[in-house]
């Protein structure tokens, strides 16, 4: 880790021995550190996160949603009037050099204003319907393109990655949504046919 942990001391705080005391100071790099945030997570979701299977999805005008491979969670910031002093861990390389020479002074890097909580939500798939209806598949269009060699108009066409960028749902839920709409991947784009649209009403 970089500079933040060069004088952390979390262990010194958590392992404080009986009948002893320790000074706590502001970290040499104490500051707002707006790039640091706390996320409350269920123990059972921990492996998924630690194995890189999680992402935040949504557009900037939507509330952020956290997606595990098969579940979607709304992310809510919960503020606190308490002062939460964050003490980083000590840099392991530094502590091996100084060892018992210098006592570690636990340092507060940041005072957190709150934490982010997760609330399980249903995937937001209404948008998927609207997006795929923008440019429904018509076999006649394909024949025109082939015969007249017209450049295919790609507006309203979405590949898997485009859908992931726009739809707040986990991968599995998104796939289930596509199946429910009888959508098919044609030339890398997800399409619904004109007749399928009637089923949606």
């Amino acid at each position, binding site marked *: 880790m970089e500079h933040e942990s060069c004088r952390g001391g979390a262990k010194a705080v958590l392992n404080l021995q009986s009948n002893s005391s*320790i000074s706590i100071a502001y970290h040499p790099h104490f500051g707002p550190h707006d790039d640091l945030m706390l996320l409350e997570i269920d123990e059972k979701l921990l492996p998924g996160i630690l194995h890189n299977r999680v992402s935040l999805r949504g557009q900037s005008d939507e509330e952020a949603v*956290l997606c595990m491979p098969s579940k979607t969670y709304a992310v809510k910031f919960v503020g606190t009037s308490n002062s939460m002093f964050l003490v980083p861990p000590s840099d392991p390389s530094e502590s091996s050099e100084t060892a018992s020479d210098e006592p570690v002074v636990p340092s507060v890097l940041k005072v957190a204003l709150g934490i982010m909580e997760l609330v399980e939500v249903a995937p937001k798939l209404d948008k998927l319907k609207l997006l795929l209806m923008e440019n429904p598949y018509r076999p006649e269009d394909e024949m025109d393109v082939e015969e007249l060699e017209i450049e295919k108009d790609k507006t309203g066409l979405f590949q898997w990655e485009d859908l992931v960028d726009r739809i707040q749902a986990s991968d599995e839920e998104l796939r289930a949504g596509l199946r429910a709409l009888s959508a098919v991947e044609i030339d890398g784009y997800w399409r619904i046919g004109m007749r399928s649209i009637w089923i949606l009403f």
Partner: protein
Amino acid sequence: MQIQVKCGCREDSCPEWAIVELQGAVEAQPSFRDRLQNLEIGCLCRPSSEEKYTFTVGYHELSGSKVPLKKPLLVLKKKRAFDPEESIDSDPNSSRMELEVIGIIRQRILFKTRPKALISKPQPTIKEKKVTPPVTLFQG
């Protein structure tokens, strides 16, 4: 857009951070406010073998205990991901943002009782003759 949450650490080796939590705010004297770095906040004591602690800030002594969190907290850091495939003239603002897990918190030392005033008690940690300590407790 999609922001990946990455973790470079393995499950059992995620660095553990600590939280010391108290009610109200800690304030520094005006002359210290711009240079808080390295300033002492207070003294954390564990008087016995129990998980009970006191935290002395300025003239106040708080009592609390070390408690496990109901649910662990992950410390996430926002980062701009460097994409080697991006061309030189692509918009720098369009580089992907990532969230990296840089730590985990499972316990905190929580102080939730009313502070005890120590006005008449001599302060052995103050070496110079100061009327007010640089950092004091403020409960609004």
